[in-house]
């Protein structure tokens, strides 16, 4: 039982990152009602970007955040303009398998370039350090990641709810046709949604690199976590994504501690399952 408190705290910290990961998916889904299967791969790209810039130029991993965000942003925009724009005209099958194709492409591109090996960062301000506080031991990377995730989440929340751009984005989400009558360039807004989604994942990836392995197939895992989180929070709800992210952190970490590390991700799938079957609108959806 004495493990419980540290586990919960650690889980909530991890949950902040999940919330950020889910946020990216929720933005894209909210604005255009399409599910991005390549979401996890955006994270993977963010991770490799951070890993490479940090090792090649031997700079502090945290400083790679803007670069990873930029790469993610460009990747998102490119995905929209070169692929998703055309997918939207097709049937459901094409929409789903189209972004799925993007996922496979990025995944194996990484495999070709970097090989299947697991890589870790060894040097950085946060890496390998921890703080002890009574019986509670908190690792710096998790703490730092949580704080930065929270900040990133806050910035994006502010961007969407408090700026003109965000209002235009929301208008596009509500009704594309009406928004275009109001003089909003909806095409640009949709591209922007993908850009924002990508940037979010770039940041999340760069943060994750501080305490997690980098490998080409990591995407699917986080993609599934993101799907489960977004389903739990309600597709398209930002507030929902945040709270669901925390819950998902608890499920994974408590499950990993008390049920066994092999099964912790099975719990993610189970959660997804139960939510979509019994409460398809999620906790905060309509």
């Amino acid at each position, binding site marked *: 039982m004495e493990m419980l408190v540290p586990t919960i705290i650690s889980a909530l910290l991890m949950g902040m990152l999940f919330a950020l990961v889910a946020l990216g998916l929720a933005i894209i889904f909210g604005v255009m009602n399409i*599910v991005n299967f390549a979401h996890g791969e955006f994270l993977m790209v963010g991770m490799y970007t951070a890993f490479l810039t940090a090792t090649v130029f031997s700079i502090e991993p945290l400083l790679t955040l803007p670069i990873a965000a930029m790469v993610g942003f460009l990747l998102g925009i490119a995905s929209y303009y070169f*692929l998703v724009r*055309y*997918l939207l005209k*097709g*049937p*459901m*099958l*094409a*929409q*789903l*398998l*189209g972004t*799925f*194709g*993007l*996922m*496979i*492409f990025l*995944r*194996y*591109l990484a*495999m*070709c370039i970097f*090989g*299947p090996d697991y890589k870790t960062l060894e040097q950085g301000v946060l890496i390998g350090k921890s703080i002890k506080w009574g019986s509670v031991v908190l690792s710096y990377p998790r703490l730092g990641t949580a704080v930065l995730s929270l900040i990133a989440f806050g910035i994006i929340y502010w961007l969407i709810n408090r700026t003109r751009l965000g209002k235009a984005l929301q208008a596009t989400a509500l009704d594309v046709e009406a928004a275009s009558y109001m003089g909003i360039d909806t095409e640009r807004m949709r591209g922007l949604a993908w850009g924002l989604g990508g940037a979010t994942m770039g940041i999340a990836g760069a943060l994750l690199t501080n305490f997690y392995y980098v490998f*080409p197939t990591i995407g*699917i895992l986080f993609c*599934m976590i993101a*799907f489960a989180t977004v*389903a739990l929070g309600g597709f398209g709800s930002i507030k929902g994504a945040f709270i669901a992210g925390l819950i998902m952190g608890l499920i994974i970490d408590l499950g990993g501690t008390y049920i066994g590390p*092999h099964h912790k*991700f*099975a719990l*993610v*799938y189970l959660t*997804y*399952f139960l939510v*979509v*079957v019994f409460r*398809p609108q999620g906790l905060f959806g309509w």
Partner: protein
Amino acid sequence: MRTLRDAFSFGDLPLVERIGFAIFIMFCTLFPWVTKGSFDQAVMIQFLIFCLYGLGWNLIGGYGGQVALGQAKNVGMSAYTVALLMVWWDIPFWLSTPLGVVVATIESFVLGYFLFRLRGHYFAIATIAVSLVWQQLFINWDLIGGARGVELPLKETPNFLYMQFASPIYYHYFAFLLVLAAILYMNWFRKSRLGYQLRSITSNEEVAESLGINAHWVKVKAYCITGVFAGMGGAFYTVYYNYIDPFSVMHLELSVMIALMTMIGGAGSMWGPIIGAMILIPLDRYLGAWLGGSGIIGVDFMIYALMVMIISAYEPKGIWGIIEKVRARR
């Protein structure tokens, strides 16, 4: 009788398609006599297995429009049933295969029954989730070999009961017969009530329900048939390779490959899966053999992924859709 006549009658198809089908049959019949290379023959058998998978997936994915990404688990369950029954109790192929197919079908039924409450992407994601759980389970389940897989004991002499032959020709013809049966079934299916109902559900589920169609039940039925096809494929795979492991028959990658292949060839059309397999399998094997030495992995998947992206963006009906468009223009 009428069912049989429907299955064997290709009369309603354009002449070009009938000629194409005849050429396909001739090619598959003569292939083992024309080539002597064992690698080519292995590729051919692989092609036939994937035709079978693709024809099955086309039912739920193409005609039914449901993005089911979990055929590998049906393949795997049947393959494991056949393999384990032989390893544990020495049960011959011809007895274990029906059992394997039944296991695969039951899994389809149970899963379909629950999952078809979900629509669109919810369903697609759920099938991936289930696949990942099964994959994890099979890799960690020591009783059935875990990650090491299962190796079938070899008989001293070629044995028809256990489908162990000295020459790949026998496997070739057996696989070819399975594919032919599958094509005949699909030929019946596209004209059948089930086929019409499934296509109607794909075009608009609400309208279909208003026409007295129990959409949920029709989807479950179609998913079960997909499971039968996968189960047959899995059983054959086992005796052909004499070795299975969770990575070859249970893996999400297999499901993905089947779906992508059908999509590229043309989902929802009779010949689409065969065209898809015809392009992708040789590409995969020969490219794999060619790049094998250089240690580059994943180029094949990248090529499929590119093709799928291009096709979903510009021609969701795949290569078959392009062929039909060209034909309509003339």
